[in-house]
């Protein structure tokens, strides 16, 4: 026989289904995020590991100006090195009909025939090289798809100043190019960056590198010490212009994937607890209200001889049902959401296969954490159940005392009509209860504010990056450090209105034991197109001696202005020296570091050199100008800012950007959960009063005013409070979301605050509607019979 208490449980749950579902939804969202994010973490981590393993991605990468092949053989013999594969890489400009500029691409050598020992490719269409023809190429699949290229088509490209025609024999993916971006950009755009693989001999001829190499891939043995191998490799390659070997963790594509994984990991740990804490708070409020209204029933059960444990269990089951229901729904939603997200990841990360894998632990953790959090909220209430003594519970409670509240509001009350007085007195009578509701709603507001602010921050990132930080129209990169006379040449081209030279040098920054591999950018004095900006977006002047670091580097290396930073330049004569940190730049994309151009050239002993130039141009003459640029032999590529911006905007609007709506929806769920519960409780506490009003002859609208007036007052006080809370919360979350690749500014953005307010007001409005519906449905006679 089902226990009558379980009948009661089921009926009570049904009666409070709205509140139960609101709380369950908050729990569910928390668990969904956890299941989804841990699942994604596992999927990405394991798929990446399997992919790297199967296609033998190198452990250590080294590039060098030009080293003879025998060096590769010597390095292969180093202790800890399992395999070494030398190759040639270069930049190419691919001609595509309708694209005046050509598309930047990377050319990578493969052995004449057979598979490379390291960094193998995954052939999706066509065939591998067989050494028969020097114009055979394999093209990165995503790029080929974006341009409708398939095996059999021809491809024209400019490499090292000469134009060549190739024949596509295959399409491929590669673990080395999981995430590809055009040089200097951060978001992938399949159409605007390509990779072509071709035979070693063909590339050697192009770059005049017979019997020599550019690039070395090294596979380590299981027990190898990576840093020892790197040091040994650096020593050997130094003479040949080694740029410094680095591990897989610094490999560009891998770095992006790692960033994403660690971001997911952090979010999976940080975000769900917020939801569970809110749910715990809600359960506490709802259950304490329930226990209070059922004190007679509790007393009765105790009078009949039910033990504390039995009565407690009854209420605990209710908590359990809500928590478990929410958590299980969250698990299911997490699986669905995870599957969808995996599809989105495939847009960014070119895995040959990627299936959403569940982390069974996340189910266990998600469900048990929900139950734990819910119980934490419920346990406080259970204490009260235990404390209720049966005789006291059977006595009807004295009427609520409004004497004090009546006095406090008397002066004010004189100016108000009767219903307003009821609203006011109730608020004054139960300041703690009201404060609880306000804090709850303020929390919802704060969460909405911070979630929306963060996503406004992304928009802001795009805006600032492409209009304030970088004011150029296009950036030209050169094949090698060229004389700054080239800048005059550029300036004379028709259509160019302003030219500014820059020099990018690979560098390893260091402070004590910490180091960071990045790029040092030399900027001309008083630049107009690219500059270092402080937190207020004011340009930081570059001193003759000293360096300006972006926030991320400064934080990673624990440096403040005035400290000395070690810089290890990986070009030319490769000087290592210490320079003072002159300032910290507020950057939004990437983690650059800036130095005065002349000072940087002086350090390298190469005065008057630049590696790229920023241009502003006359849009009407852009196409002709692009053709001119393409024909300049020293120009290896041109990035057009508008294109980079479009790519970024597209990514924000489709993939990552859609998360903003999800965030908005989650903020709504949380806020709705809080507001609806507050409204329900106010309703339950006042049902009898409201019924009395109706009996006296108030219309249902007037009765609703008494109820909603209170809710409105609470919400309007909570809004500014939540705004302030949200302001601080945004900074915390922004710091958490910021990575090496992009930093999210937590700015005070009135639009975000407005949207968050709309979310809260929307939730309040819906809650109000639901409660008024209940009010209109409630049976007057029933409500009056209830002794409370």
């Amino acid at each position: 026989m089902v226990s009558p208490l379980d009948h009661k449980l089921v009926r009570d749950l049904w009666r409070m289904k709205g509140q139960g579902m609101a709380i369950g939804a908050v729990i569910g969202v928390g668990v969904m995020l956890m299941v989804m994010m841990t699942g994604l973490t596992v999927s990405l981590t394991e798929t990446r590991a399997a992919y790297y393993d199967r296609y033998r991605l190198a452990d250590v990468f080294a590039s060098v100006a030009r080293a003879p092949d025998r060096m590769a053989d010597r390095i292969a013999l180093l202790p800890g090195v399992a395999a070494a594969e030398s190759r040639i890489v270069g930049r190419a400009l691919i001609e595509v009909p309708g694209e005046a500029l050509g598309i930047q691409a990377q050319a990578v050598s493969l052995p004449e025939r057979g598979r490379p020992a390291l960094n193998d490719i995954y052939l999706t269409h066509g065939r591998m090289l067989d050494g028969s023809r020097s114009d055979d190429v394999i093209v990165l699949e995503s790029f080929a798809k974006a341009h409708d290229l398939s095996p059999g088509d021809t491809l024209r490209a400019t490499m090292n100043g000469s134009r060549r025609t190739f024949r596509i024999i295959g399409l491929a993916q590669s673990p080395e190019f999981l995430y590809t971006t055009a040089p200097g950009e951060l978001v992938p755009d399949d159409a605007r960056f390509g990779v072509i693989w071709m035979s070693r001999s063909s590339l050697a001829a192009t770059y005049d590198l017979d019997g020599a190499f550019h690039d070395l891939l090294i596979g380590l043995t299981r027990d190898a010490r990576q840093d020892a191998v790197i040091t040994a490799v650096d020593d050997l390659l130094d003479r040949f212009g080694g740029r410094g070997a680095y591990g897989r963790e610094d490999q560009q594509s891998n770095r992006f994937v790692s960033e994403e994984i660690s971001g997911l990991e952090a979010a999976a740990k940080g975000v769900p607890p917020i939801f569970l804490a809110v749910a715990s708070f809600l359960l506490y409020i709802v259950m304490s209200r329930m226990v209070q209204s059922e004190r007679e029933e509790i007393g009765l059960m105790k009078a009949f001889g039910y033990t504390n444990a039995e009565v407690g269990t009854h209420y605990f089951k209710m908590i359990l049902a809500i928590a478990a229901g929410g958590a299980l729904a969250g698990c299911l939603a997490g699986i669905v959401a995870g599957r969808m997200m995996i599809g989105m990841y495939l847009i960014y990360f070119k895995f040959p296969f990627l299936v959403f894998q569940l982390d069974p632990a996340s189910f266990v953790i998600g469900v048990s954490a929900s139950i734990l959090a819910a119980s934490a909220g419920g346990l406080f209430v259970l204490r009260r159940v235990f404390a209720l003594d049966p005789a006291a519970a059977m006595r009807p409670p004295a009427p609520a005392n409004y004497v004090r509240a009546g006095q406090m509001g008397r002066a004010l009350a004189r100016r108000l009509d009767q219903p307003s007085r009821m609203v006011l007195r109730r608020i004054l009578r139960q300041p703690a209860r009201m404060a609880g509701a306000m804090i709850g709603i303020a929390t919802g507001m704060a969460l909405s504010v911070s979630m929306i602010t963060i996503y406004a921050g992304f928009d802001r990132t795009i805006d600032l990056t492409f209009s304030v930080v970088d004011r150029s129209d296009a950036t030209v990169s050169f094949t090698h450090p060229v004389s700054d006379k080239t800048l005059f040449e550029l300036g004379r081209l028709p259509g160019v209105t302003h030219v500014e030279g820059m020099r990018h040098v690979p560098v390893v920054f260091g402070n004590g034991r910490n180091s960071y591999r990045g790029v040092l950018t030399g900027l001309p004095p008083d630049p107009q197109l690219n500059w270092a900006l402080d937190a207020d977006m004011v340009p930081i002047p570059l001193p003759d001696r000293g360096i300006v670091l972006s926030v991320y580097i400064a934080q990673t290396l624990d440096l403040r202005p005035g400290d000395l930073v070690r810089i290890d330049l990986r070009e030319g004569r490769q000087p290592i020296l210490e320079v003072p940190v002159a300032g910290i730049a507020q950057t939004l994309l990437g983690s650059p570091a800036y130095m005065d151009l002349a000072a940087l050239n002086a350090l390298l002993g190469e005065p008057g050199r630049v590696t790229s130039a920023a241009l502003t141009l006359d849009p009407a003459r852009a196409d002709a100008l692009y053709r001119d640029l393409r024909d300049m032999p020293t120009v290896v590529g041109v990035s057009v800012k508008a294109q980079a911006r479009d790519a970024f905007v597209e990514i924000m609007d489709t993939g990552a950007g859609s998360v903003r709506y999800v965030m908005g929806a989650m903020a709504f769920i949380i806020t709705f959960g809080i507001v609806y519960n507050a409204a329900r409780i106010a309703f339950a506490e006042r049902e009898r009063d409201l019924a009395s009003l109706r009996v006296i002859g108030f219309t249902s609208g007037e009765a609703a005013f008494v109820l909603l007036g209170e809710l409105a007052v609470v919400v309007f006080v909570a809004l500014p409070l939540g705004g302030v809370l949200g302001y601080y919360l945004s900074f915390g979350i922004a710091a958490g979301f910021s990575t090496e690749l992009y930093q999210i500014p937590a700015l005070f953005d009135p639009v975000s605050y407005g949207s968050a307010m709309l979310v809260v007001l929307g939730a309040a409005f819906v809650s109000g509607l639901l409660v008024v519906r209940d009010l209109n449905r409630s049976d007057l006679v029933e409500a009056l019979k209830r002794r409370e």
Partner: protein
Amino acid sequence: MTSPAFTTRGLTKVYGEGHTAVHALRGVDLEIPKGEVVVLLGPSGSGKSTLLNILGGLDRATDGTALFHDTNLSEMTDRQLTRFRRDHVGFVFQFYNLMPSLTARENVELVTEIAQAPLDAGDALALVGLADRADHFPAQLSGGEQQRVAIARAIAKQPEVLFCDEPTGALDSQTGRTVLKVLQDVNDQLGSTILMVTHAAHTAKMADRVIHFADGAIREVVLNATKLNPEEIAW
């Protein structure tokens, strides 16, 4: 005469402290024989409910002893009191105190579920004449019917003692008589001792023994030579 079901000596109950203290019981000495119908009569506020609650194990005395057969209720732990209520006692309250979310039958089952030798819930409802209303919720029953469900619930465990605190207080005379009749039947058929609190003097006519109570103490105890059948009581 068999040994009394309850015996109290100097039973005292004080609510609060200092000059706000309320002396609800001021030394009550009392014996309640097993199997009798005992009516506790007195004005409102005289301490009747307090006494009933202490004897029923719902509350504790400040001083004095209260024995249930040979066991001292004052010395019992909370756990033992719970046990005592569970095994020996039934309660009927003035405001019925049914669980609104349970049907009549389920309200009765609430008790049979934890009792040692319970009646069938349907039989208990039949005893109070409500067999056909078993699946109704309290909201669908009249006051008298609700009270009869409450009685069915109280007797379903076949308690040794049935405590009724103003069981007819909220009922009209005809319904009140029906309820009293049910209580009398329980006493006849199950042999339960009944201790009933009331401030309505006419109810006393159905009792074996009437205890007049005033100001926290017993005024007099009257034994009824002739018990009236509740149906014959003039209201």
